[in-house]
């Protein structure tokens, strides 16, 4: 196995593109190193991207935020501007693993690990996040919902990796929230996750919403029907019931030791309702 720690994205992309065997990007390593240790992967090349300055910071601009691929999620939790703008994204990122894990793990790693149960991904998709990709043929930017194609697989091409995630600047009277269900309080994998991002119009009516579900399908599900169910409402009980029903209808989960199909489906609706209420409150609705 070879290990490389380049200092520029171009260099990193070239190394990965030229690798003869399987090459992996190392950021926090909280998934990669575990998989190497238990022997499920044997990389020919590991490219550590933490020495690339562009991966190391959270920057705020007029258009929103840019979160480098090497930024540990704990740093997201310490960034007040980010927390204020996208509390749901930050709370999702700060649910991954444990405190120790969060000192290393990154949202890009969480995304590229491509688990259907990844905690930060439903929140990122609900927030309309984009991935800044670099590769041997240059840069491209795609919506986060286009990255994961199935459990363990992504749309990244050979030599490509994600340098940063961008989040738009939220419009006024916006709020987001993420909830996940686990049988304990921490250090667990989501049985169901639900992300909601919404913007209110005048009089507290939901003008625009995005609703996402995790761990109920091979990839995170964006549920436009659920968003429609609450758009134009003040989250009255009828609207929330419709939201839950739309979420249940969007579920296509597996039956496994972490939850049955019935359980995941029922709880998806419950969590979406609860997340919507939190997002609504954060947006200033009553």
């Amino acid at each position, binding site marked *: 196995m070879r290990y490389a720690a380049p200092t520029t994205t171009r260099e990193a992309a070239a190394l990965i593109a030229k690798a003869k065997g399987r090459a992996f990007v190392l950021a926090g390593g909280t998934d990669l190193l575990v998989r190497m240790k238990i*022997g499920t992967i044997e990389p020919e090349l590991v490219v550590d991207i933490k020495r690339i300055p562009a991966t190391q910071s959270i920057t705020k601009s007029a258009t929103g935020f840019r979160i480098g691929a090497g930024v540990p999620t704990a740093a997201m939790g310490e960034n007040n501007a980010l927390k204020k703008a996208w509390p749901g994204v930050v709370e999702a990122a700060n649910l991954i693993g444990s405190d120790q894990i969060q000192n290393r793990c990154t949202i890009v790693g969480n995304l590229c690990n491509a688990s259907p149960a990844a905690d930060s991904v439903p929140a990122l998709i609900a927030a309309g996040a984009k991935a800044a990709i670099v590769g041997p043929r240059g840069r491209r930017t795609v919506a986060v919902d286009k990255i994961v194609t199935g459990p363990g697989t992504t749309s990244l091409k050979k030599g490509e990796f994600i340098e940063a995630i961008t989040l738009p600047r939220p419009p006024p009277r916006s709020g987001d929230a993420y909830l996940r*269900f686990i*049988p*304990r*309080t*921490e*250090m*667990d*994998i989501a*049985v169901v996750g639900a992300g909601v991002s919404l913007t209110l119009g005048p009089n507290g009516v939901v003008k625009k919403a995005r609703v996402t579900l995790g761990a109920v399908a091979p990839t995170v599900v964006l549920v436009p029907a659920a968003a429609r169910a609450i758009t134009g409402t003040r989250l009255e009980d009828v609207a929330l019931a419709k939201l839950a029903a739309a979420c249940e209808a969007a579920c296509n989960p597996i039956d*496994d*030791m*972490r*939850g*049955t199909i*019935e*359980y995941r489906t*029922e*709880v998806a609706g*419950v969590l979406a309702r609860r997340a919507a209420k939190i997002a609504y409150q954060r947006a200033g609705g009553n």
Partner: protein
Amino acid sequence: MSEALDTREYKVIGSRVVRPDGIDKVTGRAAFGADLNLPGMLLGVVLRSPHAHARIKSIDTSKAQAMDGVYAVITGADFPNASETEDPALSANVMAREKVLYHGHAVAAVAATSMAIANAAAAAIEVDYEPLKPVLSLDEAMADGATIIDEQLRTAGADEASDTPTNVAQFMRLDRGDVEQGFAEADVIVEGEFATPTVHQGYIEPHACVATINEGGQANVWCSTQGHFDVRSLAAKVLKINVADLRVTASEIGGGFGGKTTIYLEPVAIVMSGKARRPVKMTMTREEVFRASGPASATKSRIKIGAKSDGTLTAMQAWIGYEAGAFPGGPLAPGLMCVFAPYNAPNFLIEGVDVLVNKPKVAAYRAPGAPQAMYAGECMMDELARKLKIDPIDLRILNAVEEGSTATYGPKFKAIGFKACLEAAKAHPNYTRQLAEGEGRGIAAGFWFNAGMQSSAEVHVNENGTVTVIEGNPDIGGSRASMALMAAEELGIPYEQIRVIVADTESAGYTNVTGGSRVTFATGMAVIQASRDIITQLKERAAATWGIEEELVEWEDGHAVPKPGVNADVQPLSLADIAGNAGRTGGPILGRASLNARGAGPGFSVNLADVKIDRETGKVDVTRFTAIQDAGKAIHPSYVEGQMQGGAAQGIGWALNEEYIYDADGVMENAGFLDYRVPVASDLPMIDTQIIEIPNPTHPYGVRGVGETPIVAPLAAVANAVRDATGIRISELPLSPPRVLEALDAAEE
């Protein structure tokens, strides 16, 4: 032997001193099972069965043997025939012979210069299996026409001997009076069926050992164990070697809870070390710990209780089936003996079976058999209280055993603390605290016999008056501190002047396992006796120094003094004075004691649990938990409370989330701490404790064992709280969110 209770005022015991091993343990300096490295040491791995039940047709190790860096490859053929050993089941569990009996059963092992080579060599071993149908549950094992796991097995203890092969290893019955008559006399009868899953002790340190055989043929083993003398005797049985040819040193131990009272890796490492003529270290992965060490039995049970309308019990009946795993030996007897032990029932019939299934051979887990049995029994006591509309504590007080009661399992109780625990529970503010919306409260009782058994201790007086205590129990729960406290109490010197050494099998007198809640009671008694032996000698030395009769000398506050009224013009002699002068009064001063302790006082507990239920997800949160237990006398109250809190944490895990999940082929799906969910700290409330002290009359300080009772009551306390919160009796553990939500949804329909 047992000792008379000494009712003097204590000066040292009962204080909360810092344990001597504590700082090394929290800073990572302490040496655990995997921490020993020797020159030339090889690393060993075990090849394990991919089938839950299969016949081994052949094993070809030639490719593995030929690999560079491989020094030993062994299979069952390298061990004495299991059937010719004193413990055939243990022997066949350590290394499979004709058949593999569970997924993860050891089939072969390799020792090599690196883990990578050892793993590659293990993968190169070719095993030809003939897969057989696995038997994966008690019901399946007992069904007509069930696949037979062991053709030679016949039911022990059956009413009528049969020569038909069976999976039922043992039948057992305890009874008194006429249970039918008792139910006929009852005004109210409650009945229920219960099930509990296979669970693991969840000790943090995986099994690990280092074995080396010297050129003279003597083996040295360093390992993480609850009893190095047991490792010696068990390994000697499996390998048919002389115990004198095996020296075992216990490392520090990162938890055992009963699971480290047996052996897995040690004989394998010894055999490979012999072949390789090099030291061999073996360490289980967490996955191996789950798949191949001994969990606690899954159970099925049926309980029926009858009572008069005032709550007086008229009849109690139980049937409890224990899964033994792949070999006989589930905790049937203790389970049956515990199930109704807290109560006076004029008529009872308690029956049960120990049944083979294709799962790992079960091992002890804290009060083996009792949590499963008393979960069922205490849930039904709760139902009885509900049906009678009697306070559940009052119902238990009305029927509680006390001094002089005859236990369901035979003996008459001496002084016990059950009623005192019940009364403390009733008076506890947590019993009357207002519940919030959606919360429920449950209570349950717990019982465990506690053990005595054999212990030895030596006390050495150093030349400056400090003292070394040498004993043979690996220190899991703070026993070094407790031993030092008891020696300090006897000798009248400060705790800080005493060092306690846990010595190896050739340096300490024979001592049974750290288990059965016996160490503070039995080994403590040996330390007290050895200290008293020292005092006798100290008085002799003082008498010789003063030129007076020994009978005229007393030991008081760490000093030899003349008895009151003795006319001698002498200054008191401290332990240091006498120790410093020992060379002139007869040489070094050593005390010793060895004993087989009897009269372990039974432990009773009462637990209160409050839970909050998320009715939309089925998640149960324990919001308040109160453990009340009779410790007899708490030598070190913090460590007694620690036992109570730890037992509660494990019991809550058992009640809410822990379970082995198997697929249809008998492969455990959740062999890791991610999906085998022990509670993490944030899952639990602060566990309130209240120590009750009803002295055990057969120990000098009144000590009872405290380590096991704490895990017995939490299962039912939590289950009864969930029943209280939901109005639904869910009769199967764990009360995991999907199971609770399903029950809530079903009740709504």
